């Protein structure tokens, strides 16, 4: 390979890295600014409530239906696998743990990133493109306080609720399949589940996870919208980055959190 191409390639990587790092720095500063302007989002509760509606309520159908289907599949596949070891009665605890610890927060988070996250990014990006954010600034109203912070908190508040609803629908789906369809004993299903899942650590860790995911996805969504190139392509690229970035962040954080939370179990 000629030296000039190599040099050019290295320069591109260097420039790209510098750009990525400075963007990360900007993102951090942005996050702190959003936090600083958050109190006003709660003074004007109406604004945040509106965003909870758009982020949370409008995601309800997707989340609950997906939860139901995931639960049903878990029930089918789970029973099939467990039955091989004569552990069919453990279906309840298997499904319960899978949902509460992992699938609830993670899948609900991924769905949230795609549905609500992209909507938030598109909305803010569009407001930037049509100069609405500029106009607000010139009217001495900080768009971070009025537009960004309420959307951020709307997402953070909605996520744990959505994850819990996902898990509940999942358990219900598994119940339908396991108890009604396959014939696992009703009492055994619930009894084993209750015996094996504790509020602490399982349910609470699930809630903590969904909160962390909510913060990550909401932050990425509002940041990408705010930072978007004020053109049609720019907004489209920003929404893509939200969905991809948000999903990857969820999966990566899930790994880190799982290691910390559930490291102790299974051993003495």
């Amino acid at each position, binding site marked *: 390979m000629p030296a000039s191409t190599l040099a050019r390639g290295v320069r591109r990587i260097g420039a790209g890295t510098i750009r990525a790092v400075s963007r990360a720095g900007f993102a951090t500063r942005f996050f702190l600014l959003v936090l600083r302007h958050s109190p006003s989002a709660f003074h004007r509760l109406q604004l945040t409530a509106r965003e*909870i509606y758009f982020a949370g*309520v409008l995601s309800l159908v997707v989340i609950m239906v997906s939860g139901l289907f995931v639960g049903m599949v878990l029930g089918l596949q789970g029973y099939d696998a467990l039955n091989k070891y004569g552990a069919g009665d453990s279906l309840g605890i298997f499904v319960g743990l899978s949902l509460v610890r992992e699938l609830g927060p993670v899948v609900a988070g991924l769905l949230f990133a795609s549905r609500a996250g992209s909507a938030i990014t598109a909305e803010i990006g569009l407001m930037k493109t049509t100069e609405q954010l500029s106009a607000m600034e010139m009217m001495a109203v900080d768009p971070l306080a009025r537009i960004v912070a309420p959307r951020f908190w709307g997402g953070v508040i909605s996520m744990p609720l959505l994850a819990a609803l996902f898990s509940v629908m999942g358990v219900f789906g598994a119940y339908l399949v396991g108890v009604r369809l396959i014939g696992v004993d009703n009492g055994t299903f619930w009894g084993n589940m209750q015996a094996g*899942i504790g*509020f602490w650590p399982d*349910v609470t860790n699930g809630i903590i996870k969904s909160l962390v995911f909510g913060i990550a996805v909401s932050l990425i969504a509002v940041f990408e919208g705010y930072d978007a190139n004020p053109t049609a392509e720019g907004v489209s690229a920003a929404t893509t980055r939200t969905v991809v970035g948000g999903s990857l962040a969820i999966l990566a954080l899930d790994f880190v959190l799982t290691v910390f939370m559930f490291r102790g179990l299974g051993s003495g």
Partner: protein
Amino acid sequence: MNKATIDLWVGIFVTIGLGAIVFLALKVGNLTSIETKPTYRLDASFDNIGGLKLRAPVKAAGVIVGRVESVKLDNKTYEAVVSLRMDNGYQFSKDTIASILTSGLLGEVYIGLEAGGDPVMLADGGRISKTQSAVVLEKLIGQFLFDKASSGSAK
């Protein structure tokens, strides 16, 4: 899409969301179990606890009366000291026997309590003196082979 409708839906959303969390806590988890009732502590020492885990159940006559709270190694006697969180509603005599048992062949490990006849009951912080350690499979096999060998050589 006016204010009132939005407020209504947000209210519904938050309510069912919190309800879902409560449901998970109660029906799926086991929040309503012993943790919320008044409890007292008992200690017991074992030579070997085998596969006993934290939060394993403590049963008497098959009924859960408590949970394993902590497991420590006594540095002087090199015995395992297990703390049991017992439900206040159940009292046990001083000569109760605590054994480490397995439910079924491959089931979970738990502590079984057999009450004795002593009129004096154990109080908070009391110690169960009679204990039976877990059956460790390797030792059992070793024992079996040893017995076999010694009975063989004795012949």
